[in-house]
């Protein structure tokens, strides 16, 4: 198998390296790739969409249809992970660990015993008896998470002007929730942002995108042609495209955040949603 792989790989690589000489030099401004289509985007992008970051303009407007499917891919991955891994477990089918916070004593309660209430301030549930009580980590994360979230919102909203946009912002928002899940525990994270909410907001995010496109279609323009939204928003065609980009970026951010968190829930608990990393 290894020899076969080596032969296949060397053949492919050799073929490609052999043809590298035909390629234009690295950074050649006169290569066909840089002269045929891309000048249009650079020269008209800002005028057409009012978004100085041309990557955002191309991503969300000129090739917005690709991006819709990019979001759908993420959503499909979330569905796939849920579909493959999720399994229901009956509560109370195995012993649980609790820590008595004032003393630091760990309690092991067998199934059938009385468990402390979920939101008790004295007892906290743990995944296993060796989980340390990391007060520094918890408090640092508590401080950092709001800033990550605000930064993520900035990235989403400022995608027109600087690197970033819905996808990056969505990943950052998801990272904040994942950080919470790691520093505290998965159950508390699920308590705040449940699986059902994640699944529904994943659908909702993609729906905002596709729905905005379909709305343009209902208003008589082509699919995803945000100019049609102009009369509705009370702005001219160029600003309508700019607002259209913002709307779909919000949809992408929502979908990506929800789905990445959803995938994390399923992967980190192997589908049981009881204890995480």
């Amino acid at each position, binding site marked *: 198998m290894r020899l076969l792989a080596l032969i296949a790989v060397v053949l492919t690589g050799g073929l490609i390296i052999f*043809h590298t000489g035909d390629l234009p030099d690295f950074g050649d401004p006169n290569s066909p790739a840089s002269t045929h*289509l891309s000048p249009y985007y650079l020269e008209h992008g800002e005028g057409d969409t009012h978004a100085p970051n041309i990557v955002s303009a191309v991503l969300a407007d000129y090739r917005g249809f690709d991006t819709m499917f*990019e979001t*759908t891919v993420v*959503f499909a991955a979330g569905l*796939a992970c849920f579909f493959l891994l999720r399994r229901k477990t009956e509560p109370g089918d195995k012993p649980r660990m609790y820590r008595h916070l004032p003393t630091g004593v760990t309690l092991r309660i067998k199934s059938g015993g009385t468990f402390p209430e979920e939101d008790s301030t004295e007892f906290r549930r743990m995944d296993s008896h060796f989980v340390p009580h990391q007060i520094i980590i918890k408090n640092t994360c508590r401080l950092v998470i709001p800033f990550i979230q605000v930064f993520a919102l900035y990235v989403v909203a400022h995608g027109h002007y600087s690197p970033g946009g819905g996808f990056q912002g969505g990943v950052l928002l998801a990272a904040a929730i994942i950080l919470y899940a790691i520093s505290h525990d998965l159950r508390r994270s699920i308590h705040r942002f449940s699986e059902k909410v994640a699944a529904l907001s994943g659908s909702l995010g993609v729906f905002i995108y*596709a729905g905005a496109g379909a709305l343009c279609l209902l208003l008589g323009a*082509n699919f995803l042609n945000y100019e049609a939204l102009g009369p509705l928003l009370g702005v001219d065609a160029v600003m309508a495209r700019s607002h259209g980009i913002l709307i779909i970026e919000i949809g992408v951010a929502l979908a990506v955040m929800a789905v990445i968190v959803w995938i994390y829930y399923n992967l980190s608990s192997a589908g049981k949603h009881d204890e995480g990393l």
Partner: protein
Amino acid sequence: MTQHFPALLIIVPLLSALAVSAMGWIDRRWCFPLAVASLGGALAVSVSLLVQVMAAGPIVYQMAGWSPPIGITYVIDYLNAPVLVVVLAAAFLNLIGAKVRIEAEFEEKLGAYLALYILFLSGMVGIVATGDAFNLYVLLEIASLTGYALIGLGKERAPLSSLNYLFMGTIGASFYLLGIGYIYIATGTLNMADISNMMPQLMGSGTLFLALIICMTGLFVKMALFPMHGWLPNAYSNAPSASAGLIAPLTTKVMVYAMVRVGLTIFTPEFTFSRAILSETIVWLAVGAIVAGSLLALMQRRLSRMLTYVIVAEVGYMVGGFWLGNKTGITGATLHIINDAAMTLTLFMAVSTITWKLGSDKFEDLKGLFGKMPFTMIGFVLAALAVIGIPPTCGFFSKWYLITGGIEAGQWGFVVALLFSSLVNAVLFFRIFEIAFFEPFAEGHGHHGHGPAMSEAPASMVAPLIIAALSLIVLGLYTGDIVTKLIQLAIPAGIA
């Protein structure tokens, strides 16, 4: 509204997939009707597009209102309009036929399953309809990713088969993406029509030739052409049968369609068939696929596994026919995309019905099946006759074109392989007929001489199967129209 139909083809399944997945969390009873309605709607749209194309020629739809090289376009022409109808009809029939099984097997995850099913389909529809080379990659990934999930929750070996499929699928899609990169570096555009406009000036380009090889390699991996076919039998035979009935008829066929599209529309035929050595090599690979697929099919002792190797051989038919490079061969390959989708659908639906009743598809368990499930077996027999290539069914006509094309091109190896494979198919299926018809029913021998009692599967499974089987004859009868009114018009004038 009619001018927006190409977009509706995608929007209807996409929006309903979202709705179905949301309904899975709110009220599961709505999932199935919604899914059926959306597929029915998309099917109606595709039929109306076919009528429009036949009446008024190709339709170009500009997404987001940007004109072709700048934005993404959808192009419905003579080549893909019939393929769209077949793809949607196959998925629709399979969904109805598999209702009972889906609801029994995935009750908790019904919403997710149906959403994945529809997303898979919207990926496939998009691949067929798109006029943008990169958009095709994105849609390919949607279809693949959902496909892995649909396969992964099957019988015991399903996760491993699915992961292997994922590795091979990713290699294939990434190679395709790389090929697009080389096309982009040579032409600077991603729109298929725009690329083909530039091809005459770039006839001698080494970069584009490399791009052609890489793209084709990627698509060959995805369609499981002979040396890269290892993932297919495991993935399809271990998949849940509702998924197998969706993925088996569509994936390989749509990939062959993508190959035809890349060969004819992106790289014009003049370029694609300009290097004889490439065409020769690929035809011989196809011959290898046909022979190996047929021989491996003979060795199997399970019905579904046997059929997966028949698919491997059928891929060889289509790839070989296309790379013959003449009009007859390409006509045969394109016609076979449609016919083979219908045949595979019928076969897999029949197997699904059989396993639902018997719980197994091993050859020794099939005894007396004609008496027990007569309607299912009618469908199975029709499909088997089509695969063998018996005249009134559609399989005969596409095979006829392929063989004629092979003779015209002087590719005798391909002709012999086709005839050999027909012979092997006859052996394969008549062996099953013998087991299912002549041998006594295993438990019936103690009773009177009337044979086993009939115990047919529910009508919701059998009726779609019969419809699919009848479509094989209908497709056969209308072959002339399909060829002269659609496929002949789709083939560029440059091909002899």
